[in-house]
Every structure is written in structure tokens, then in C-alpha cells.
């Protein structure tokens, strides 16, 4: 793999997914070390009326604490933030997050595109965007925004994805730096972790 990607300047990782993404993302969170330093923002399509349970299910195996942020909450290193049900999650200048009840985007709230675009605007080349399995196109334009700002784009290999529409849509609209099986995505982040240990 291109070594230029492995440095310790990243400010954030945004991860999006929908149908078929829960399992690989749970696995990813389980495999990351507890002191993985880069904040992770998860935007996953979820049932709007189920406020509880989702974060607990994600947390069972995770070595890291997962939080649904409150509006204007400060981003802290090493945390995993999950977009709350029925709210869009955005990253703001000044190291905070904001929530919004604006209308559905791509038929979704939270919408991956909004999280990704706002993060791209704030973190520019210091952002990694990862898009997992999903049955709609949400996230594709977000990945484009990340690439346009110089960030890193990773999709779960469509061959492996339970639903390949989401990663394929991203591939259609922008350059993808890495197309990887879920396990390799974890390895990528573990290699990155090593860069932060130096």
C-alpha cells in the first residue's frame, strides 16, 4: 500500500453504512485498540423511532466508548460518535459537532452525505472517509466532497458488501483510494495506529 497515507496528521474518520454494514462495522470497532487516537464519526442508517438499543448493540464488542453526541458537543480524540436517530450529524469549525432536524436527505436522517460533506469542509486532507455496504446512494457525494478536499476515500469491496449500491455509487462519482474487504479496512486503520505510536 502507498506509504504516503500512513502519517499521524489525521483529524477525523467518518464511516457510513446502511443495510449490511452493521456486522463489519461492529467487527471494526471491536478490533481497534482502546487508545486509537483519531475521533471516529459513524453515520449509519437506522430506525428513526428506536432511540435506544442501537448504540448498546454497537458497543457490546467495541473496545472504545461510543457516544451519541449532543448538539455543540466538543470533539475529543479517541472517541467514537454515532449520529443519533432522526438527526443529521455535522462537524463544525471550532472542533464541535452540531445536530440538525432538517428534512431527509437521500431519504435518510441521519444522512451520510451531510456528515461527510461537513467533515470534509472542516478537516480537508486530514480526513478519511469509509463507506460500507448499503442499498442506496447516500454517502456517494459525501465521498466526492472528501476527495475534492484532498482527503482519503475507502470503500468496502462491492464484491464482499452485502449490498453493493452504496460503495459502487461512491466509485461512480469520485476517485476511490482504496477498495478493501472489511478486514483489510481494519488492517489499514491498525497500520495507521502504528504511525501514531511513533
Amino acid at each position, binding site marked *: 500500500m502507498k506509504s504516503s497515507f500512513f502519517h499521524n496528521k489525521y483529524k477525523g474518520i467518518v464511516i457510513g453504512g446502511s443495510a449490511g454494514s452493521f456486522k463489519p462495522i461492529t467487527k471494526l470497532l471491536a478490533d481497534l485498540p482502546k487508545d486509537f487516537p483519531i475521533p471516529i464519526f459513524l453515520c449509519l442508517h437506522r430506525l428513526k*423511532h428506536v*432511540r435506544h438499543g442501537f448504540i448498546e448493540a454497537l458497543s457490546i464488542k467495541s473496545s472504545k466508548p461510543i457516544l*451519541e*453526541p*449532543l*448538539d*455543540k*458537543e466538543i470533539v475529543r480524540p479517541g472517541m467514537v460518535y454515532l449520529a*443519533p436517530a432522526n*438527526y443529521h450529524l*455535522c*462537524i*463544525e*469549525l471550532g472542533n*464541535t459537532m*452540531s*445536530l*440538525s*432536524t*432538517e*428534512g431527509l436527505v437521500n431519504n435518510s436522517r441521519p444522512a451520510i452525505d*451531510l456528515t461527510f460533506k*461537513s467533515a470534509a*469542509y472542516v478537516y480537508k486532507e486530514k480526513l478519511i472517509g469509509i463507506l460500507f455496504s448499503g442499498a442506496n446512494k447516500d454517502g456517494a457525494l459525501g465521498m466526492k466532497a472528501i476527495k475534492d478536499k484532498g482527503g482519503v476515500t475507502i470503500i468496502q469491496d462491492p464484491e464482499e458488501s452485502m449490498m453493493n449500491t452504496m460503495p459502487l455509487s461512491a466509485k461512480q462519482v469520485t476517485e476511490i483510494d482504496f477498495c478493501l474487504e472489511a478486514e483489510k479496512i481494519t488492517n489499514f486503520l491498525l497500520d495507521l495506529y502504528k504511525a501514531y505510536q511513533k
Partner: protein
Amino acid sequence: MQRDIEIAELRRLTQYIDDNFDYDFKNYAMSSFTRRVRRVIELYKFTSVEALIKKFKNDPSFFQEFVSEITVNVTEMFRDPTFWSSLRDEIIPDVIKEHRKISIWHAGCSSGEEVISMCILLKELDCLENATIVATDIDQSIINKAKKASFSAKNMELNKQNYERYGGKNDFLSYFVEDEGFFYIKPELIERVSFRVQDLVKGNPFSKFDLILCRNVMIYFNQTLQNEVLKKLHGSLFKYGNLAIGSKESLIWCDIANKFVVVNNEEKIYKKIKD
């Protein structure tokens, strides 16, 4: 418009608005406000923020349309059903027991779904007659819509589901009259509500209340503005009055957080304990 909207452009826009209209958007939260401005630009096919400002210069009446488009009007009846059941089971009975009456302000009421939820709740508690309700919004056209109180059949499905999750015991649709695919709230249910245009940013406290609902409104403001607006809400509450904000909002970062205590952290209901 393909390119990003620059911060400098937004500043020119909000400054122009502040200078020429009595509205101040300078401290709205950046990412959502930028999206809303972009939305207006795309909707009306302007080529840039400058073109939008030019439109204001040539046609100041366009400004009200702009306000309608810039504000977020996504709401549901009984949104967060457990919030409404805690009002029904704890907050409102306590106020009624103490004072035999209750005054309520819906700050940022949008198209009125929460006002209707409140009226239904009060009716079912048999204390609608004891309530004074004021509902305000920055946008004249959405206030008109709230007064009209008609809802499409499509939206009623979700409203009804929320009502059932809230534990409503009645036939939800019996509170409405159906006409050609639209559901109108029965007028007697909202006759005690006073709908008014009011801007939380520029407006001043106009009365005192036992309960203020300001849910998912301050999320569109930055921290500076949240602080200012919270002071106004505080000033509009009787001592020991209740303030409800959105389930993912918090007062903890606000300057006067210590003048409130948490009544229900899950549902984000606070009580004013200090003047």
C-alpha cells in the same frame, strides 16, 4: 452553484440582512445555515450569494420568502413519545396541582404539530380549560399554516403512530375532521392558543410561563446565540418553571446553566431554580 459558499460571502449576506431587515442571522450555526442559504440559491436559481443580495435590493418583499426557506420546518406530532408521556405523567400534573392553571409557550412552533400534541395532551388530562398557550415562530407564513392546522393523510400516519407510542388511549383521528385527504384539527381544541410571529433572536421576553417548549430550535444557533436565547427563555419563566429542549440538546455549555436543574435528563426537561 457548484462551488462552496465562502464564509466571507455569508458574512456579507447576514450583514446586509441585519442592516436592511430587522433580522440577525449572524450567529446561526454555520453548517446548517450555509446549507439553507445554498438551498435558497438553488431553489430560485441564483448564481451566487451576491445575486441573492441583489435580489433583496431590487425586491425587498422577497425577504419574507427567504425567511420561510431558511428556517427548518420539520416537525411531528408527539415527536419523541416518551417526552410527551413525561409531560403528561410528571411535569404538567405538578404545575396544575400547585397552581390549578398552567401557561405554556411554544417557542419556535413551526407548523404547530407540537402545539396540537399539547392541546390533545391537556384535553386528555382534563385541564385544557386551565391552560393559556402562546405559540410563536419567526416565519409569518408558517404561523399562518399553524393556525390553519391542516395535515396531509400521509403525515397523519406517523402522527398517529407517535400518539400510540405515547400511550394515547383515544381514537387519535377523532380529534380531526377529514376533508378531501386533509385532516383539520377540531377548532375547539386549539381555540385557547395564541399564535404570533416572534423572533427569538431580536425579540424580548413578553410574558412569564410555567412551561416553555423550545425543542430543536437552538440547534440552529451557535454557542454565542444559544447563550443569549437561553437568557431570554430564562427571563420568560416563572421561578420553578420548566424548560424543555430537544432530546439531543444540552444546557451544560451555556453561561447560565447553573440557574437550572435537570428534571429529566433523558427527555431534556429543566427547571429554573434561580432568578
